[in-house]
């Protein structure tokens, strides 16, 4: 389990043939109201990831979107995305000034690509261990 919040969780799931360990971001839909709005979060995240990737914004590669249904209703859904194991968010790069400096490039990239990310913040910008390459996450 990578992350757990009230409405979702993310987990690394290893393939049985050892071919990879993508991240499944799962949105359990536990009541009728959330099931009727089943495309509000998970599907939107998948759609936004595809669009961001199409525009050349560095995002975790989307692999798939899944739905589990019961009696015709979607009871869980979510995107399957690239695993960024070993990457660090901006909070782990020293003081406020260095993190703020590093945040400039991702924010400028979003601006250049004409994209409004409604939750652009330090936690949602992951840097590779070498500290050059980055990905912007959480596209709900």
């Amino acid at each position, binding site marked *: 389990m990578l992350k757990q919040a009230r409405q979702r969780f993310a987990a690394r799931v290893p393939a049985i043939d050892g071919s990879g360990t993508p991240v499944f971001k799962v949105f359990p839909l536990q009541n009728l109201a959330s099931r009727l709005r089943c*495309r*509000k979060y998970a599907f939107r995240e998948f759609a936004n990831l595809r669009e961001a990737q199409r525009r050349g914004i560095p995002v975790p590669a*989307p692999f798939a979107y899944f739905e589990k249904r019961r009696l015709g209703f979607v009871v869980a859904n979510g995107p399957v995305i690239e695993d960024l194991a070993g990457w660090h968010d901006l909070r782990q790069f020293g003081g406020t000034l260095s993190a703020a400096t590093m945040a400039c490039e991702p924010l400028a990239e979003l601006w250049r690509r004409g994209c409004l990310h409604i939750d652009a913040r330090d936690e949602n910008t992951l840097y590779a261990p070498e500290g050059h390459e980055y990905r912007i996450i959480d596209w709900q």
Partner: protein
Amino acid sequence: MPDASALSGCTTFRTADGIRFFVLDSSTFAPEHYSSLSNFE
């Protein structure tokens, strides 16, 4: 609300436990390699 065109170009796959996948590129992700996903709710 995003429309269904987000799934354009995807291939569909249904696992034994009834989960339907819309896969962008089957060479990078193969749903059949994930045997037990039934606790995803």
